C-alpha cells in the first residue's frame, strides 16, 4: 500500500551491494592467501565484516518487500535503524581488527611480498571504482527516500572506496620505496588512517540510528505546521479533540481527532480530511497523517 516501488529500488540497490561484496571478499581472500602482508589481512577482515553488514541489510529488505502478512505495511523504520545499529557495530569491530594488526606490524615490521600484493593492487583499482559508484547511488537514493539504511550503506561504500585508495597507495608506496628501511611502516600507518575513517563513519551511523530508534514527539516547528493547517480549515470542522504525533525511525505519524457537524455530508468530511492530510504530509517530510472522527477529547 505504501511506496512499494521505493522498497523494490532499495532491494535492487542492496542486492547489487551483496553481489559486489561476495566478489570483494573472494578477491581479498585470494590476495591474502598469496601474499605476506598484514595490511591485506586487515583488508580481508574489513571486507568480510562489511559484507556481513550489507548481507543483513539485504535480508531485512527482502523480508519487508516479500512479506505478504502485512507485518511491515506501516513502514520499516525501526528495522532499518536496527540494521544500521548492527552495521555500525560491525564497522567498529572491523576498525578494532585493523588497529590491532597495525600495532602488530609497527612492533614487528617487514616488507610486503607475494603475488597477492599485485592481485590486491588490481583489485583495489577495480573495487575503488565500484565502491565509489555504489556509494554515490546509495546516497542519492537515501536522499530521495529519506532512508537511514541506504544512508548507512552509502557511508559504508564511501569508507570502502576510501579504504581501496589508501590500500592501493600503501601497497604501491611499499613496493616503490622498498629500498628505504622506513617503507616497512607505510602499510600499517595507512591502515591506521583507514581505521580512523571507519571509526568516524561508525559513530555517525550509530548515533543517527540510535537517535531515530527512540520514539519521540515532533519538533515545535512541525507541531505549528499542523496547527496552521487546522487554522486554515477552522470553519470546516466543529471541534478539535486532540492531536497525537510521534516520530518513529525516519517517519512521522500524525493523528488529528476532529468533530464535524452531524448534518455535514460524508463527501464534504472526506474532502476536508483528505486536504488536511495532503497539506500536512506535503510540509512534513516522511509524514503519514490520519484524520479521525471523534466526539470527545482524545
Amino acid at each position, binding site marked *: 500500500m505504501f511506496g512499494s516501488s521505493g522498497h523494490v529500488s532499495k532491494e535492487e540497490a542492496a542486492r547489487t551491494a551483496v553481489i559486489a561484496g561476495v566478489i570483494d571478499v573472494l578477491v581479498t581472500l585470494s590476495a591474502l592467501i598469496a601474499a605476506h602482508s598484514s595490511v591485506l589481512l586487515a583488508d580481508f577482515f574489513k571486507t568480510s565484516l562489511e559484507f556481513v553488514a550489507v548481507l543483513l541489510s539485504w535480508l531485512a529488505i527482502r523480508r519487508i518487500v516479500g512479506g505478504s502478512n502485512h507485518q511491515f505495511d506501516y513502514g520499516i523504520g525501526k528495522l532499518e535503524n536496527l540494521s544500521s545499529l548492527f552495521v555500525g557495530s560491525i564497522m567498529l569491530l572491523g576498525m578494532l581488527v585493523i588497529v590491532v594488526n597495525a600495532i602488530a606490524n609497527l612492533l614487528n615490521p617487514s616488507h610486503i611480498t607475494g603475488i597477492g600484493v599485485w592481485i590486491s593492487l588490481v583489485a583495489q583499482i577495480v573495487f575503488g571504482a565500484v565502491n565509489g559508484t555504489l556509494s554515490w547511488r546509495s546516497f542519492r537514493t537515501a536522499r530521495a527516500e529519506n532512508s537511514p539504511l541506504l544512508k548507512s550503506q552509502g557511508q559504508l561504500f564511501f569508507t570502502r572506496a576510501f579504504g581501496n585508495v589508501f590500500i592501493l597507495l600503501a601497497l604501491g608506496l611499499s613496493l616503490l620505496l622498498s629500498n628505504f628501511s622506513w617503507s616497512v611502516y607505510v602499510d600499517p600507518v595507512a591502515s591506521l588512517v583507514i581505521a580512523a575513517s571507519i571509526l568516524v563513519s561508525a559513530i555517525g551511523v550509530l548515533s543517527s540510528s540510535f537517535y531515530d530508534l527512540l520514539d519521540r514527539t515532533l519538533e*515545535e516547528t512541525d*507541531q*505549528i505546521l*499542523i*496547527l*496552521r493547517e*487546522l*487554522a*486554515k480549515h*477552522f470553519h470546516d*470542522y*466543529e*471541534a*478539535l*479533540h486532540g*492531536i497525537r504525533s510521534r516520530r518513529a525511525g525516519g517517519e512521522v505519524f500524525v493523528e488529528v481527532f476532529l468533530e464535524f457537524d452531524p448534518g455535514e455530508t460524508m463527501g464534504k468530511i472526506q474532502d476536508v480530511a483528505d486536504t488536511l492530510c495532503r497539506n500536512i504530509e506535503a510540509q512534513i517530510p516522511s509524514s503519514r497523517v490520519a484524520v479521525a472522527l471523534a466526539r470527545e477529547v482524545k
Partner: protein
Amino acid sequence: MLTVNVAKSGEVTEVLLTGELDGMTSPQLEQQLNRLIEAGERRFLIRFTALVLITSAGLRVFLGFAKKMHKLGGKLVLCEMSANVRGVFDTAGFSNIMTIRATAAEGKALLEPEPASTPTPPL
C-alpha cells in the same frame, strides 16, 4: 509554571495569564476555560500581559477554545501579547481566525454588549 487569574467585569470574563504556557501547563488552562464555559460564561478577554512563553501545546488550547466559542456563539478576544507571543500566533495562522487587540481596553470594547438604543420619540 502558569498562573491563571479570572476576573469578571460586567459581561466580560477576563483571564490573565502569567508565566509559561507549554505542554505541562496547557491542561491546567484548558480545564479552567472549560469550567468557565460550563458556568455559562460566553465573553472572554484573554490577557497575555505576563505570558513569557507559549508552545504548540498552548496554541492548541486556544484553537480548541476558539472552536467552542464559535459553536456556542460566544466571543473571544486576545490582547496584550508580547511581540514574541504575537509572532507565534501569526506563524500558526491564528491571527486570521482569532480577534487580537493590542490593549485590554480595545478588547473589552469589542466584548461589551452594545447598549440598547433609546427609542426616538415620534415627531
